[in-house]
């Protein structure tokens, strides 16, 4: 995802001299292209994320559109108060980009697991929160947030669902994409784990279970209508995120639906429930370990459909 992001950012920077990129001393071999192409629009702020975010705010308040770039929790949690007080409160055009959502850097350990970021960033007023699921969404979201006023958070993943766009499809922040139709149940995924949802839907289809697949690339603004439709039109809703189940996509869906009185026939949040992960593991390994792989999704979907069928028979 990061290469797709950088390639698009270079294009945007060439077209708009206001665009500026600050890295917190990360992006070896990845940001080289940007720096070479747009040196006057590039800065390495060193290993100092609080200062990086303050600098970004100062530059933004003086007319620039500033991307901050680092990995995992460094551009978000490490400098959360700068994101909140400086950038967000001043509605500064600061775009916080974190590479390595979820377990992207799984084997590096807990410090590098970004598994609470969506919930935390989503709680701060005014921040647009985006976690693209495929490379096309990355490119489109990069362009869209550059043009969106105020603070945006872009969470990028090591994994992705490839390219899921249809010919001439238009991307809109805050608009859920329905990648697969179905009424037996709906799988709503945010971030690179979208690929798992699509794989699970394929397996389910072979069993005759038709799963709708929703790519929820934007958590704020949130596309309530598409979720409400999925509640009304399908047999149940499973949310999928490489993130704690508290306060992320699953929490957002639950609070939105309950408040609106639109209750899905069945509901389950797939995400991290085990607390901090302290075992070594690749992204794929940790997904399996914590019940977030395609097999786990399929099992949950099957159980949901069967329990509805059993309930139907009982009536």
């Amino acid at each position, binding site marked *: 995802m990061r290469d797709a992001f950088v390639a698009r950012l270079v294009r945007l920077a060439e077209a708009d001299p206001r665009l500026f990129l600050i890295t917190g001393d990360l992006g070896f071999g990845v940001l080289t292209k940007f720096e070479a192409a747009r040196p*006057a629009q590039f*800065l390495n*702020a*060193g290993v*100092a994320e*609080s*200062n990086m*975010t*303050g*600098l*970004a*705010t*100062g*530059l*933004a*308040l*003086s*007319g*620039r559109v500033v991307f901050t770039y680092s990995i995992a929790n460094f551009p978000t949690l490490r400098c959360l*108060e*700068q994101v909140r*007080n*400086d950038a967000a*409160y*001043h509605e500064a055009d600061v775009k916080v980009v974190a590479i390595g959502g979820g377990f992207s850097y799984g084997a590096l350990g807990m410090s590098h697991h970004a598994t609470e970021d969506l919930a935390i960033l989503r709680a701060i007023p005014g921040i647009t929160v985006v976690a693209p699921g495929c490379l096309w969404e990355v490119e489109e979201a990069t362009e869209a947030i550059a043009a969106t006023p105020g603070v945006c958070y872009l969470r990028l993943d090591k994994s992705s669902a490839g390219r899921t766009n249809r010919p001439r499809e238009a991307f809109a922040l805050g608009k859920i994409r329905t990648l697969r139709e179905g009424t037996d149940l709906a799988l709503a995924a945010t971030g690179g784990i979208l690929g798992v949802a699509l794989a699970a839907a394929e397996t389910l289809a072979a069993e005759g279970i038709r799963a709708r697949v929703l790519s929820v690339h934007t958590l704020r603004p949130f596309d309530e209508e598409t979720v409400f439709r999925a509640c009304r039109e399908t047999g149940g809703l499973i949310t999928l995120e490489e993130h704690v189940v508290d306060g992320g996509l699953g929490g957002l869906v639950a609070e939105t639906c309950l408040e609106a009185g639109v209750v899905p026939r069945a509901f389950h949040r797939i995400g991290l429930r085990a607390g901090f992960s302290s075992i070594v593991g690749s992204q794929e390994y940790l997904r399996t370990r914590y019940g977030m792989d395609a097999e786990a999704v399929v099992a949950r979907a099957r159980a949901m459909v069967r329990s509805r069928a059993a309930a139907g028979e009982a009536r």
Partner: protein
Amino acid sequence: MLTAAVPEGPIDSRALAKKIRIHALHMTSRGGSSHIGSVLSMADIVAVLYGGVLRVDPKDSKWPARDRFILSKGHAGAGVYAALAERGFMPVEKLKTYYQDGLELCGHVSHKGVPGVELSTGSLGHGLSVGAGMALGAKRDGASLRVFVLLSDGECDEGSNWEAILFAGHHRLDNLVAVVDYNKIQSLASVPETLALEPFTNKWCAFGWTVVECDGHDHDALRGVLGGVPARAGAPTVVLCHTTKGKGVSFMENTVLWHYRTAKGDEFDRALAELEAR
């Protein structure tokens, strides 16, 4: 409350400092808020800045070429509101709304609805990084504006400041000026008792800054230093202003108590009398 109009011609910074102090006493007493000692400590610095050093236009607070001033010690916001009102950025009458329910002048300096405030602060250790960003932007744009950031001494405990200090020295931001209100008193005890900053000058020097020490209540000295920045081309300037916390009210001077205490009743009357007699 004092009344004031937009000054025409040169501004008497001493008169402005007196007004800032008196306004702040009224505001904090009426609002029942803290930090009068912090405002009195920096009143002369703020008065010299707004009394002619800062290139700002009260009629166009967003004038792009303006100098930027950031109060990083946001708890002394009453002093900046008073200076802005006296300079005509907002009606002096508005100062009466400080700390009042439903209105805009919060205890910690806020930009929302307050023309002339560049940055809302309150959590310490934020202003210098944002100021460095503004200074860097100006450098890259070839603009000649200067950025002044006023910090407290206790605030220098915050690690984020040292990230910004390291950054500004490395990037030779000579359009960035840190002004430290060095009154040697924090919220619970003195600076040396809390976290010693000395040798303070050496610390800034080691990070590539030019250090100027100054009596933070001597208007001529302040005007000379602040009006003459950068002290050295190619390096950011820090002005360590030796100040007295609570300056101007004898029983508030050099006490920890008046960081938080609000002057009421007899204390208010005595404080006002002393400030008016200055």
